């Protein structure tokens, strides 16, 4: 009991002395001179501690009406009438002296007459001998008004009678049903109140530097907190959840021995398309799929050696065994600036810079790519793409599947399956799906293949297998965070960013 007493906060302690069984919230407010919300909060805390039970009930309540509030202060009209009437007076002078309106005067006349306090002689009124006694005793209605608001059923029979009469008059009192909060003391509560009356408590509320310095806390007790209740939320700084996944994926790549590639978001078509053996009339190069730049519309082509080799491979296969696309390659089209449509252009740039001594080499990239699309729940015009390449003279298709499987396992998917696919710059091409055990479905995450010799030979100068793959990042994020609308990823809703769980892989 002592411990319980020590947990009481100042406001709880303020309220405690006024608690008794059945007392209504409003009454505690009145007695304790605290605000409604404070009392309510204190009662809730006390309820958590098992001191009280708060009961709500719907009951008829009698409360002051508009006129009632005025009369409570100024006095009832009949009282004011009688007070003024110290001799025979005409109605007009009474009205002037009391400031009552006609209606009030009329009612007062009736009431006072029925109590034999006045006699009426035409337009004149005269008090009787009862006047003094009535004024001395006071009007019971006025006492009653001062008690309001009150639940109807708590009224005495006499009060109920008064209420009945007052209800017939205009706007003095109102009877309506209302939700009332009552306190019911528990056994603990009753003991606690008894105990609190006999114990003087001097508890430390807040520990201050001053107390520490002056050792004021020695020998004193601290108020015990309710450590179990909820407190207001606080939000910390953190990475965007998409970037948490990006960082995680990077770590997986690094552990697998891959080196990071980075590069510009705005590229020439040469690196984005031509170097990847994408025919110049391929639909992916259409205006409706790719963002082109108005100004500066074109950029420069790289080193002539590479440009010549790329041109030749497009036109007739160049130094490869390929027949090529059998058309005239247009350097102007290759110079067009675009927003990169994939990170594969980074792989092309990287391969172009590799020397024989660098092999075998493994690279990865994670970055933003662009697609000229209107946005909806499943399409974004900016999205993240992963990219991995293995440049290894001894690499083959089985290794490609091995790397994909390994990567999938690392990011938490144990079941992987592969199907034929088509991409313009890989042969064979493969699509990898992982099994999502939570949603019990296969999700497409890998687009992969071995770069065609038409891609590698012009850039590297030699026909060496380059395993390449690009797992889609967004789908994995959606699956993990149970998000259905892709737009949520970059909507930057601060509530979501603050409250979404961390990436825990």
């Amino acid at each position, binding site marked *: 009991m002592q411990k319980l007493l020590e947990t009481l906060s100042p406001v709880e302690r303020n309220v405690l002395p006024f608690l008794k069984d059945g007392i209504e919230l409003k009454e505690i407010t009145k007695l304790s001179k605290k605000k409604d919300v404070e009392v309510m909060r204190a009662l809730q805390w006390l309820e958590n501690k098992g001191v009280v039970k708060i009961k709500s009930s719907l009951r008829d309540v009698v409360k002051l009406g508009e006129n009632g509030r005025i009369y409570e202060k100024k006095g009832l009209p009949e009282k004011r009438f009688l007070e003024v009437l110290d001799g025979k007076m005409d109605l007009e002078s009474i009205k002037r002296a009391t400031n009552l309106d006609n209606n009030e005067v009329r009612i007062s006349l009736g009431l006072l007459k029925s109590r034999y306090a006045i006699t009426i002689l035409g337009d004149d009124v005269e008090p009787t001998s009862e006047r003094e006694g009535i004024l001395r005793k006071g009007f019971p209605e006025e006492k009653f008004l001062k008690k309001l608001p009150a639940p109807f059923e708590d009224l005495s029979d006499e009060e109920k009678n008064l209420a009945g009469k007052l209800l017939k008059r205009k706007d003095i009192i109102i009877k309506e049903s209302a939700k009332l909060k009552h306190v019911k003391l528990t056994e603990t509560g009753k003991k606690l109140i008894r105990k609190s009356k006999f114990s003087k408590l001097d508890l430390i509320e807040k520990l201050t530097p001053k107390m520490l310095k002056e050792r004021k806390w020695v020998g004193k007790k601290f108020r015990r907190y309710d450590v179990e209740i909820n407190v207001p939320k606080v939000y910390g700084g953190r990475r965007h959840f998409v970037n948490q996944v990006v960082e995680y994926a*990077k770590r997986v790549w690094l552990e697998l*021995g891959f080196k990071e590639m980075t590069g510009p978001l*705005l590229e020439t078509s040469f690196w984005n398309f031509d170097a990847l053996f994408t025919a110049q009339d391929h639909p992916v190069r259409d205006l409706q799929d790719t963002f082109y730049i108005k100004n500066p519309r074109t950029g420069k082509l790289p080193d002539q050696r590479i440009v010549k080799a790329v041109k030749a491979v497009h036109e007739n*296969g160049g130094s490869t065994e390929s027949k090529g696309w059998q058309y005239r390659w247009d350097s102007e089209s290759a110079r067009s600036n675009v927003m990169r449509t994939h990170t594969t252009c980074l792989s092309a740039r990287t391969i172009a810079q590799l020397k024989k001594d660098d092999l075998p080499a493994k690279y990865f990239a994670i970055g933003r790519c662009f697609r000229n699309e209107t946005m909806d729940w499943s399409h974004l015009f900016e999205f993240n793409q992963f990219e991995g390449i293995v440049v*290894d003279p001894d690499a083959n298709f089985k290794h490609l599947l091995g790397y994909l499987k390994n990567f999938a396992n690392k990011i938490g998917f144990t079941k992987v399956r592969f199907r034929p696919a088509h991409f313009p710059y890989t042969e064979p091409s493969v699509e990898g799906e992982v099994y999502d055990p939570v949603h019990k479905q296969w999700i497409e995450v890998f687009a992969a293949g071995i770069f065609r010799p038409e891609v590698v030979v012009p850039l590297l100068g030699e026909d060496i297998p380059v395993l390449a793959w690009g797992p889609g990042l967004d789908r994995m994020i959606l699956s993990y965070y149970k998000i259905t609308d892709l737009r949520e990823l970059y909507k930057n809703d601060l*509530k979501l960013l603050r409250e979404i769980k961390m990436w825990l892989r």
Partner: protein
Amino acid sequence: MPTITIDRKEFDKLMGKRYPDELLKDRISMLGTDLEKLDSREIMVEIFPNRPDMLSAQGFVRALKTFMGIEKGLKEYVVKNPPIDFKVMIEKSVHMVRPYTACAIVRGLKFDDQKIKEVIQIQEKLHTTFGRNREKVAIGIYPFEKITLPIRFVGSKPEDVRFVPLEWEREMNGLQILSQHPAGRDYAHLLEGKSVFPFFIDAANEVLSMPPIINSERTGKIIEKTKDVFIECSGFDMNTLNICLNMIVTALADMGGTIYAMKLEYPDEKTTTPDLRPKRMKVDLNYINKWLGLDLKMKDFKRLFEKMGYSFDGKEVKIPPYRSDIMHPVDLAEDIAIAYGYENFDAEIPNVSTIGEEDPFEVFKKKIADLMIGLGFLETVTYHLTNRGDMNKNMLTEMDCIELMNPANIEYDILRSWMIPSIMKVLSENTRHDYPQKIFDIGSVFKKNPKRETGVEEFVRIACVSCHKDANYTEIRQYLDYLLSSLGLEHKIVKTEHPSFIPGRAGRVSVNGKKIAYIGEIHPKVLDNFGIEQPVCAFEVNLSDMLEILKK
């Protein structure tokens, strides 16, 4: 990617019998096609762009049957020699507008409503994919009984030639077709501005069509009575046209037709189409084995090639005449892999040791992010594309913008040249959430620079804002001071005027004499433009420049 729909009854007939759904589902998805739907009524399959020969029910089933082992090897097609008048004369006049055509006649077809739909589907799918919306190849199919041979392919002034186009009631000249007929309007860009238009005209001087736009209503419409058809493909590359023609005639032959060749008389050359002799390619088995990581023997290769519709004699493969995608031996390697079955490959990790390495700038960006998070800032990720309203008008600035040529979404038509507008936009969209709002964003901005390869230089910048009732210069300055001193940098701030900031409350930050940042309190007019009702203080630092300084 194109999808074809095949009636299930028709499919079962072509397959020879009804196969169980489960088996078909598995096999179709391992063939290198994407099954979208399979039920008792129809089959929908997505065909990859490298296999236009599968855009017909016949072509698809042909590939599936060898893949499933129902048939094997190369399917040979007989081409009957042309009678004397099976001839198309290509006149010099057409050379500058649509120089080539490849033609054939197929006889003995039985058309019904279903078959006519199928033929139209083949034509349309080939038009949109392989034909690049009729630019590269336009296909015309005509009822043979309405045509008088031989045919001429001529270039004429469009205003001089008149005929009734398909689904139309009166005669029009070429120009009227382009401006009035629906197909004319859709494809007008392919002929507009040419002095002559191409026309096929028969021996009775009847116009058959005006490629690549439209056939004639009288001579260019297949009906249920049609038994024999004349087919032409027109375009700019003979090889492409031949393959396209082969895809169509082999499909029609699979429908039960007999293929007849046509003689083509060019001004300087005579030739005959279609050419259905298989192409040949030498195969280096070691190369394919090495590429795939397999150890296949000669007989395995023979079996696997036959599964994909080739024939193989140990040295050379014979490639079906309708395959357009075999450019290089690796294309054969892929077909071997598909025939072997992707599901049958063992996934192997080679014992190759390399050392992982993160890009130093990425590491640096991560450190910056860590510092900001330590200060309680939340990271956002915004788009690089924006619009002038947000970037200039709302910010009260007039910066040079790099524009997109063809944005699908007009709200995102330029590349951002600074970061603060992106993050102001975030604040403006989050006014209903709890304050203080302290956020940062690291991203790329774009500036014109003629010295660069693309004429554009990209910088990575960080923008940082604090938005709450007491946000002020001192606060944001404390954060910036902390950030820079944590990196061991000493900075100097000089007062500056910037339209986005409150006059007298903006600074230009430099390190080692290089200006790398702006800092200040955002102008209330800007806040008003974004609908933000709490003060905002902000800084933006160029991280690309900062790393350069750190490297020195």
